């Protein structure tokens, strides 16, 4: 991991100064901003190391790049879907260190050293994960676009043990939207796997 040049305290104090400066005339503020830019240059690229589906990656990424855009646009792992880019639909759900995470709200720079699993890494070779198989059998999808996110979330839901009742499954799956309305089939799939 790259050595950090500036401490958290430094950021807090400069931010506090910025807040104070909001009440100071524009000219002074511009001067402050110029000085700040000199002292803390905007970092546009960043080196990260991470593991995705058990493969190691050393990458240089735009600091604005989300984990979602990283896998879709740069690593050709397009199984993870972009539905809203705002953490509102769940289509981009992946696992980071075994926990379900919205990859659109996760900056790539923050997964430094972590283990990411996407839908492509869920199955073992050509054999589908039981959840994937259950989705096929219960018709837990129609257009298929929310499906990778639903499946990653469903696996998370089972791992977390939130499958004691239909209501509990629904509660813990409600962050994953499906506009085709495959909810009945999805809940059945999860019940099938959770047994």
């Amino acid at each position, binding site marked *: 991991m790259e050595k950090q040049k500036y401490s958290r305290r430094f950021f807090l104090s400069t931010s506090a100064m910025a807040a104070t400066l909001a009440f100071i005339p524009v000219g002074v503020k511009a001067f402050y901003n110029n000085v700040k830019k000199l002292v803390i240059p905007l970092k546009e690229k960043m080196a990260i190391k991470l593991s995705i589906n058990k493969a190691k990656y050393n990458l240089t990424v*735009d600091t604005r790049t989300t984990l979602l855009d990283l896998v879709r646009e740069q690593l050709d792992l*397009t199984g993870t*879907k972009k539905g809203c880019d*705002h953490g509102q639909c769940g289509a981009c759900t992946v696992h980071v260190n075994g926990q379900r995470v919205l990859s659109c709200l996760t900056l790539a720079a923050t997964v430094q050293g972590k283990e990411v699993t996407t839908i492509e890494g869920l199955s073992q070779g050509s054999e589908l994960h039981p959840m994937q198989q259950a989705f096929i059998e219960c018709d837990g999808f129609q*257009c*298929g676009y929310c499906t990778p996110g639903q499946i990653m979330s469903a696996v998370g839901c089972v791992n977390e043990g939130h499958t004691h009742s239909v209501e509990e499954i*629904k509660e813990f799956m409600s962050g994953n939207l499906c*506009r*085709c*309305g495959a909810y009945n089939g999805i809940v059945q799939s999860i019940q099938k796997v959770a047994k």
Partner: protein
Amino acid sequence: MSETGKPINRIDGRLKVSGKATYSAEFNQPNMAYAFPVRATIAKGKIASIDDAAVKKEPGVLSVISHKNAFRLKPLDIQAQMKAGAAFLGENLPPLQSNIVHYPGQFIAVVVAESYEQARAAAYKLKVRYTVEKGATDLKTELLKSKKPKMFMGEEAQVNEGKAAASLASSTNRVDHTYSTPVEHHHPMEPHATVALWENSDQLTLYDATQGVGLTGTIAAYFFGLKPENVRVIAPFVGGGFGCKGLWLHTLLVAMAAKAAGRPVKLALTRQMMQTNVGHRAATIQRVALGTDANGKLSVMRHHTDSYNNLTEFFEPSGKQSLVLYEAPLREVTYNVAKLNRGTPTFMRAPGETPGTFALESAMDEMAYKLKIDPVEFRIKNHTTKDPMKGHEFSSEFLLDCYRIGAERFGWSSRNLEPRQKRNGKYLVGYGMATATYPAGRSASSVKVVMKSNGDVTLLTASIDIGTGTYTVLAQTASDALGVPVERIEVKIGDSALPPSPLAGGSQTTASIHPAALEACKLLRAQLAALATADPASKLNGRKPEDIGYADGKLFVTADPNKAESYTDILKRAKRNEMEACATTQPISGAGLTIPGALCTPREIPADQNSDIKQHAFHSFGAQFAEVWVDEDFGTIRVTRFTSVQDVGRIMNEKTARSQIIGGVIFGIGAALMEATEYDKRWGNAVVRTLADYHVPVHLDVPPIDVHFIGKPDPHISPIGARGIGEIGITGVSAAIANAVFNATGKRVRDLPLTPDKLL
């Protein structure tokens, strides 16, 4: 054993669950750049100036395109467009061709950069100054200057205008109320996206999220002045559509960006743009009046709709079902349409019937309550077996069975006529029902079938699977028509280079393409039989075509099934690697093939005598039953049970069909309880802009949904007998729920969605 109808798993399921189904934004190209649009911040006016200096300084920026420097597309010209098959646009607004702003959010520029992040950041630095004009932003104000449209999709829009008043006045019983529905958005889970790729400046390939590859290609060819065969549109998988994917002109914007950048360009709309730039269901204000005689027989129905549009001739046809349902000697259906400076309204799942059945079926419930008749009984009493306007018999109609079976499955008999009679703890429990209906269309279609010498079969047609199951049911039809197992059949769709098919809209795909698939398979069998019967080495040598049957990958002599020969043997002996057949089927009525570019020369089958609108009326029907629990303290409504019984002709796959109806019902639950886009009346912009504030049903909103199909093939629509099922599932749902809420609480809410505030 017939494959058709069996609830087999989707043949594309494995790709979809493993993340390998590829949607349009996922066709990354070498050296691809990214486009990000800039949108207007005013409702109406002109762009006074655009300053892109700051944008161009941003890292990675390749070009900034606005009306000042955009490629000049062919201008709108409805006659020329009709001739080219490109008349049907989402909005009549080719992008970046002038400085005029018609609605907030209109695309006014596009920035192309090396990366998505760079394009997005740079786009926000474009400085735009406007000359602002006063926009039309409030429906109620604009309705005062609204117009009465003459036509809707080739039919008279105003029916019996002004004729119902006298009859209503003399009716023994009357209800007359106003119902309103809000703006709704499609929001398929996959945002619209296009990757555009030029070769030699006259060859364009578009990977596009579209409901119709042929249509999108024809439109792009027209506006860029290209030969239709030089535009290829590819969409093997589309992440939902519901009416909003196909005809929007951001596709041209990407192609313009790719032309300017000299590189392949990708543009994916953001979820926020989908709230503005790709259509919506317009809000409606509907006044419905019903009159009956003393016996509860309808004597008159009147349905008037106030709505709006912009940059289109389309308007929400909420009176459609009021011309189809029930026996009533007189009915009046009229429209007023205003113009708003708002993104263009368009087709959304069951356009017309979704808001229209809310109004009509609520009014039917109000009348039944007034007459103290059970709502199911009231509908049975007023049932019609004929199209009330044209007088034709319905092609196949089992609506009374839908009512009866639905009532039994749901347990309707335990409902109380009077509201507020049933409680479960702190919840008031109510039952409601409504009729569902949607027209059944069928268009011309071409399908090619190829058989390899190893017996593998491929079906090809430029159709689309937006989640409906097109892949799977086509394989089932071919399996039966050739006697080849589904596992040996590959289906290739979603490519405009394939034999043309209609767009996946209007619930017509199955009805349209399956007759063609059937015919192509029949032709292939005939060709194989001709090879065999002419071959002295074949056991079938010398037999007449009509004496030959088929099963299990073989042809055989019907009278002597031991005399058989496999397809593979026939092909191998003839030294053929493969054999193909292509067929176009054209119903006697219905849309023809306007889209050029078939791979093979389709053998024209004379128009079949089916789908004849001069003989029959083609409609599907259904009955929707809802149970709701209402918390009186908070006004919250939960749909706890739902039964949907559907008369939609033959069922091609029980599993995928069921899913479609369930999906339709859930769409209806959304419309009933939560979906609404609100606009700022001052500036005209949508204030509901994301999935955080545009609420669609989530897992917890959805009860188990019980679906039953009548399953009787329609003998008059096609040799297959299937009508469409994509849209009927949503119709009647919001009325059934609102009626259940009345039964629970005694409160009649005539304004969707049924949010808690309306019950308190």
